[in-house]
């Protein structure tokens, strides 16, 4: 068999084309190269004012002092002196049938009514809020005039007096008039007709026929009716006897910033906290702090023990009147000599619990019903802490957890290796050792990354001319190794953990250190990664 050379050539060319197309269209391997990338990530300066409210810091001798004031509660006694809705309802009927001439006054009634308050003996009140709903019903076949006067209820010196003209009606379909009057600002004298009573409302009602109308017959079945309803009363001022009522509760204060403490010791020498009770009401009271306790991030609860807890104390009434009211002040100081304050604070509780019990007029009506409540009079309980920020930290560990969702697909461009570079300038007297923990979805630690060094404490640095403070400059690295990056898709959260120490460079022991005014920590975090680029 002979071979045609042309046929061979064509066959060769076709084979070549096939090979070329195969190689070009079915590229077996990816194109891969590495490149190095760097970028700043964080550039921030933190001071104490980033962590706490400005007003809680004060300066003493160039060092910060904690001046913490938290109002635990404000008791507005006006909310407790509750006056229920009260209706004065009067009906008038004639025993016999008679003709009423025009202008004839056929009702003239003065009555006294009880205000439905249980354990209060109120002599005078001024209303912050309240309403009267007046409703009159006329059964006569002529127009009638209702004069309603409420003696003792005044505003700007004028007694409450209103006249209503009711249209003619019948006994089955009386002529009606209704009105609602705002009582805010009204003063109510509740001493009754005699002036020596309490909780008494007075009313004076007259009803007469229309002077220009016809004479009409009134029969025993014709009932003239007046309803006066007091509702939604709120007290602005009150005088009387407020009773021996008690109130008690447990209030909780949370300091979330301390919920990240993991372990270690915090030393707070010379600390003191004060519970301050301010009484703006002219009424005596007796109080008891039933419990003070805190709970830290571990769930460890510590009670503050002191002879002052569980023991009753007296709260004097306020003095003065109206705008010149002088609140009484009761202070209870807890310090390391009269209580277990130091271990209490060093438990680093983030949830603080304070239980209390107050009783008004513990000795009865000793003021002759002259308890007084003025506008804005409150019974306030405040927690105050004043202490120099001499903090000793001994391997105190703070840790917080953050979500992370970062995935790498090895078929695409990936991060091959990298590191975080942390540069700091620290004017605080504590050092910090950083660690990162990478966690999977179940919270298991996949990898731990330790910083190559510490953020040094200021006392190990040098004087910074610009800030006038000792400042330590540090640099540490957190490496992102291949093992970490291989698992990065499994990482769902990470923990930043830092261990703090206040080391004295002379003794090499962790001791309390003051925080100088203007202390700061400037942090720069930069990243450098090597990416494996794939196309």
């Amino acid at each position, binding site marked *: 068999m002979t071979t045609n050379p042309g046929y061979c050539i064509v066959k060769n*060319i076709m084979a070549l084309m096939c090979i070329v197309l195969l190689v070009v269209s079915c590229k077996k391997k990816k*194109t891969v190269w590495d490149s*190095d990338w760097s970028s*700043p990530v964080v550039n921030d300066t933190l001071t104490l004012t980033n962590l706490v409210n400005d007003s809680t810091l004060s300066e003493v001798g160039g060092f910060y002092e904690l001046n913490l004031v938290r109002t635990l509660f404000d008791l507005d006694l006006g909310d407790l002196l509750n006056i229920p809705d009260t209706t004065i309802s009067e009906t008038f009927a004639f025993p016999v049938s008679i003709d009423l001439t025009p202008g004839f006054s056929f009702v003239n009634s003065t009555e006294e009514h009880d205000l439905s308050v249980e354990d209060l003996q109120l002599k005078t009140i001024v209303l912050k809020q309240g309403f009267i709903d007046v409703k009159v019903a006329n059964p006569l076949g002529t127009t009638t005039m209702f004069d309603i006067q409420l003696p003792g209820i005044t505003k700007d010196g004028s007694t409450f007096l209103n006249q209503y003209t009711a249209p003619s009606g019948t006994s089955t379909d009386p002529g009606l008039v209704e009105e609602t009057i705002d009582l805010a600002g009204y003063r109510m004298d509740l001493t009754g007709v005699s002036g020596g009573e309490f909780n008494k409302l007075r009313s004076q009602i007259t009803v007469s026929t229309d002077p220009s109308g016809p004479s009409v017959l009134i029969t025993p079945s014709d009932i003239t009716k007046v309803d006066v309803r007091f509702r939604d009363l709120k007290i602005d001022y009150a005088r009387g006897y407020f009773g021996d009522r008690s109130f008690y509760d447990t209030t909780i204060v949370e300091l979330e910033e301390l919920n990240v403490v993991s372990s270690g010791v915090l030393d707070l020498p010379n600390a003191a906290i004060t519970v301050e009770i301010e009484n703006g009401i002219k009424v005596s009271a007796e109080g008891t702090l039933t419990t003070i306790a805190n709970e830290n991030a571990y769930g460890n609860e510590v009670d503050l023990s002191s002879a002052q807890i569980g023991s009753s104390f007296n709260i004097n009434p306020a003095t003065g009147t109206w705008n010149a009211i002088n609140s009484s002040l009761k202070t209870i100081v807890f310090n390391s000599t009269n209580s277990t304050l130091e271990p209490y604070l060093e438990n680093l509780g983030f949830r603080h619990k304070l239980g209390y019990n107050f009783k008004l007029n513990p000795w009865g009506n000793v003021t002759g019903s002259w308890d007084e409540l003025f506008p804005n009079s409150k019974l306030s309980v405040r927690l105050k802490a004043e202490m120099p920020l001499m903090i000793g930290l001994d391997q105190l560990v703070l840790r917080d957890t953050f979500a992370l969702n970062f995935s790498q697909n090895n078929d695409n461009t990936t991060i091959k290796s990298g590191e975080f570079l942390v540069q700091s300038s620290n004017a605080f007297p504590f050092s910090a050792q950083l660690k990162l923990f990478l966690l999977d979805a179940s919270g298991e630690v996949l990898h731990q990354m330790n910083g190559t060094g510490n953020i040094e404490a200021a006392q190990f640095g040098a004087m910074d001319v610009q800030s006038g403070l000792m400042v330590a400059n540090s640099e540490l690295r957190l490496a992102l190794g291949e093992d970490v990056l291989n698992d990065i898709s499994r990482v769902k959260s990470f923990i930043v953990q830092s261990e703090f120490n206040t080391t004295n460079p002379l003794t090499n022991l962790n001791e309390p250190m003051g925080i100088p005014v203007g202390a700061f920590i400037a942090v720069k975090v930069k990243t*450098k990664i090597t990416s494996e680029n794939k196309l």
Partner: protein
Amino acid sequence: MRGLITCLAFVVFFQFGAVGQSLPLNYDTLELNQEFIVEGGGDFIGSAIQRELSGKFLFGGYIDNSIKDNSYHRHSTINRIGTYGGVHFEYRNYKKKLIENKNWGYLIKAGADVFGGGVYSKDLFGLVFYGNDPYKGETIDFSGSNFSFMSYQKLGFGMIDSKSKSAISINLYNINSSLSANFKSGEITQDLNGDQLDFVLDGEVTLPTNGAFSQGVGIGLDFDFKLPVSIFKGQTSYIQLQAKNIGIGYLHEKQKVYSIDTTLTFSGFQFEQLIGTNAIFSDSLNVLDSLGINSVEKNNVVLLPGYFQVGKIVAKNTGKKLQSFYGVRIYPTLIFKPYVYAGVHYSLSKSICFGLNGGYGGFGKFRVGAYSSCNFGKYSVGVASENVLGFITKKASGQSLFIRLRCAI
């Protein structure tokens, strides 16, 4: 595998003859009845990037530092890189007259093409292949960078003159992919410590929003006129005026256009920007907004990547052993410089010929090309390269191979 291909290519070059893809046709002045042509191939070229690097994008593999360094050091301020290629089939019928008493036959063509490339700075090459870390204390300047890429299929119908072989056709296009990037200004400045990045960016990137096979449709024109001229007394030469894919396309699939015109300084986030419910990364739109990047989806009208070429071609039936050819090729785009070429053609026998040529411009600089072709009666086969060095050394600036099969009846 690549060595085998290289060897085979050389065998083909020097045993037979070929015709270059866009280089002068071996112009057959004889009258024919029908012609079938199948041709295909590709060319990728860079003005600075060596084949050892660009070849990795074709064949895959790891680009190590020495490969990157070799190409990087060849870069000047403005550089180009690009590729074009495709597969085409064409049927010509010279005897079926479309117009009475005229010599116009008809042709049908179909094919697929890619065309893409860009003009870029040395710094942009460095940024892509080395990253930004080596540029601490410097400014990475990629202003004026411009990239575009398009792939499409075409189907055309036209007329061809049976004597001169001049032809014109109308083509319909299905656009597979169209993307572009253009930065009027682009600078990234880093301080020496890597504490701060300053961005000056004014540019636009246009990308497809989906992977649909048909992103758009287009209409275009090919023409190929061959004119006899007398350059030397008593000698007839032929000038070819050729244009391909001159037209426009409409992308019926929306494209996403990211635009940025901003001056930005970044020295790191503050803690409150990274942590908590107001963290900047909690909303990707926030991130784009904070970087000054706007995006909009829209349908675009695009120019097809057509070209014009004019030049002297060689004639098949002159009886001359040695002929010259030369010309210029122009793509109406900034990323492709006008490509000028010139060469000599030698007919070893009636059935075997080959040629050598040099060219300058396009996506690259100076290139040496070669072709050879072989006729077997009504069949002819040709292989050509516009960059012979690409088969000899990996230090060359690209690679080029085109193959053409022809049957003339």
